């Protein structure tokens, strides 16, 4: 029971990574590697801020701002420096490793005996692990609602168009570079926020906690798409969060089956690879079946 509740809480918090990545990976149509640096950057900033006596809520907002800043750097390297976005993301991700060490002053910083959002007084009455479900639920709800509202504004529609067809967007007066900057700033802001929240939930920030985060975010997106099928854009954002929870349950089941926790990264990659391949295999099988039936009918 408690493991299931914990999986839901972690799924909701990691769902923010999925939503952040959705903006760049699915709407703007490029993989943003910055997230692997942004996530621990958000965590490092939040934990360092709290240990310096800053209120956890403000520390969490600072984590989001830190994420936005790293997204801005990637965006400027791409749009102004003309560095391919994949490489720009890798450069920022690599640079952030040193910055995270600077922010924390060491490789790992604990929140032991420090206040954080998850040990707030009003959450103490809840059963174990429900704190992450409540906070994760509230934040995920606010974030998904804000992103849905944004995508239905004039700027949001221009943002979608820039990702869908940059040539057409430019011909309508929409600057695709500006939209790319916007996507990277907002997307990484959400990932920084997720880093800040998960660090508080886990009780520490670690300089290596970003490794594999892009896989977690992509898994949330793709599992959501595979499980829930064809949806509107707004529904797909909800599906990302639900996909993130499902992914946590998949990992939980894998661990229950007796796999070593050290193998979690390779299992994560295998789960994502399968989630990507399943729709394609299904599609091919359907085509094969249709062709076979066609031949049978002709006979």
């Amino acid at each position, binding site marked *: 029971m408690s493991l299931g509740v914990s999986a839901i809480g972690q799924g909701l918090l990691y769902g923010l990574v999925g939503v952040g990545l959705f903006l760049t990976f699915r709407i703007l149509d490029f993989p943003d590697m910055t997230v692997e640096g942004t996530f621990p950057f958000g965590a490092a900033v939040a934990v360092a801020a709290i240990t310096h006596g800053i209120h956890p809520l403000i520390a969490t907002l600072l984590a989001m701002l830190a994420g936005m800043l790293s997204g801005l750097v990637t965006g400027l390297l791409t749009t102004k420096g003309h560095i391919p976005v994949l490489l720009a993301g890798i450069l920022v991700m690599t640079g952030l490793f040193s910055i995270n060490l600077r922010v924390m002053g060491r490789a790992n910083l604990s929140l032991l005996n420090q206040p954080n959002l998850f040990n707030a007084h009003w959450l103490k009455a809840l059963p174990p692990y429900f704190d992450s479900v409540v906070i994760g639920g509230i934040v995920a709800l606010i974030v998904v609602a804000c992103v849905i509202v944004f995508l239905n504004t004039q700027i949001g529609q*221009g943002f979608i*168009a820039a990702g869908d*067809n940059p040539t057409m967007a430019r*011909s309508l007066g929409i600057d695709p570079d500006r939209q790319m900057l916007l996507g990277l700033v907002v997307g990484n802001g959400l990932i920084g926020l997720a880093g800040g929240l998960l660090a508080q939930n886990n009780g520490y920030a670690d300089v290596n906690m970003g490794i594999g985060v892009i896989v977690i975010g992509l898994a949330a997106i793709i599992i959501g798409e595979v499980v829930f099928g064809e949806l509107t854009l707004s529904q797909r954002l909800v599906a990302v969060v639900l996909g993130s929870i499902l992914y946590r349950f998949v990992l939980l089941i894998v661990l229950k089956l007796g796999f070593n926790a050290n193998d979690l990264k390779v299992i994560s990659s295998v789960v994502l690879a399968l989630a990507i391949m399943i729709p394609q295999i299904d599609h091919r099988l359907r085509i094969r079946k249709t062709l076979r039936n066609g031949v049978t009918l002709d006979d």
Partner: protein
Amino acid sequence: MTDQLTLEHVAVNVAVETHVKPLLQAIDLRLAPGDYVCVLGTNGAGKSTLFNAITGDIPLAAGKITLAGQEISHEKPEKRARLIARVFQDPKMGTAPRMTVAENLALASRRGQRLTLASRQLRQQLPAFAQLAAQTGNGLEKALDKPTEQLSGGQRQALSLLMATLKRPELLLLDEHTAALDPKTSEAIMAVTDKLVTQEQLTCMMITHHLEDALKYGNRLIILSAGKIVADYDTKARQQLTAADLLTYFG
């Protein structure tokens, strides 16, 4: 009458390895408001380059472009969009494939405007969009809520045309916009084009490879060769031409 579009000594070059290759050479062109100009020329003559120079997709090596009284020679393409609308040869290039027909039209209704955080107000515009789409005569009005990737090439090009003219442009550029369509659809799209351009008295330039279309549509014909305008026929002069006359320009 003041010119609507003026090109003065416009030149465009491209660097090829160690030397510079001219794509457009000292182009001088004046279009009056409401001019509907067909542009003809061999492959590589500079037709699309001329359009790219006007839209700002290619920088000028020399010269000056003025549209509706505003000098636009060095403006970015997205800034020029307030004045210029373009329909591309490939039906896929003019629309956002994963957005619906109505969403594409709503975006086009704000072409060149600063977008804000105000609601896109799609629902309020649907009746007007349905009426507009019905003009194309290819069932587009029934597909307003469909992603444009699900439309046929003809429907998609008709949508591109509607998007280009929804907010009146100071200059409409049609870049071989029927070339990728089958003959019947091409004819239907040309009929819609002609209706929209003449009814609204739009200033328009249309690249075409169809000699008959070049003689039939518009009020003027210019012919490009090797980056230069080699012939400019007004309505009267064009009436004397035959398709065989035009063929001589193609060597």
